[in-house]
C-alpha cells in the first residue's frame, strides 16, 4: 500500500515537467501564471501522498499551504497584470 502511495506521489509531480515546458515557452505572462497555479496544485497532491508514503502526518499541513497560497499568488499576479498592484 505504501508503495502505491509513493508511486502516485511521484507521478503527480512528474506531470509538472509538462507544465514547466509551458512555463518556458508561454508567450505571455498569464500563460506562465496558469502553469504555476497548476504546478502548485500538483505539488499539494504530491505532498499529501508523500505524507501517506512516509507515514508522517506532520507533512500534511504543507499541502494546505500549497492549496491556499497558490490562490493568493495567482490573485496577486493577476492584479499586477491589471496594473492595480502599484
Amino acid at each position, binding site marked *: 500500500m505504501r508503495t502505491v502511495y509513493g508511486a502516485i506521489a511521484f507521478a503527480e509531480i512528474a506531470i509538472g515537467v509538462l507544465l514547466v515546458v509551458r512555463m518556458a515557452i508561454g508567450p505571455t505572462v498569464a500563460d506562465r*501564471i496558469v502553469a504555476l497555479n497548476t504546478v502548485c496544485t500538483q505539488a499539494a497532491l504530491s505532498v499529501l501522498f508523500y505524507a501517506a508514503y512516509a507515514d508522517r502526518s506532520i507533512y500534511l499541513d*504543507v499541502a494546505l499551504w500549497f492549496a491556499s497560497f497558490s490562490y493568493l499568488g495567482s490573485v496577486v499576479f493577476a492584479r499586477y497584470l491589471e496594473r492595480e498592484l*502599484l
Partner: protein
Amino acid sequence: MAVFWMMDYLALALILVCAGLVVRLRNLNGAVMALSGVGAFSALLFVVLGAPDDAHSEIVVGAIALPVLYLVAIGKARAEVHDSGELDEQPRTRP
C-alpha cells in the same frame, strides 16, 4: 527508499530547469514567474527531505513574497517602455 531518491532527483531537476529559465528568459515578468516556480519546487524538496517547517516558510517567502517584491520593483523601474518588442512581450491589441 526508491521513491525518496526518485522524488529527490526529480525535484532537483525541476529546480534546476526553473533556475535556468530565470536566467535565460528575456521577458522580465516571465522570469519572475519562473522564480516563483523555483520557490514552489524547493518547498516540495524540503518536504521530501523531511523539513516541513522550512517548507512552510519557503512557500510563503520563496513562492509568494519574493516574486511580488520583484514584480513591484520591476513595475516601478520601467513604468514606460516604448519598444515592447525588445522585452519579448506580446503586443497589446485591445486598448
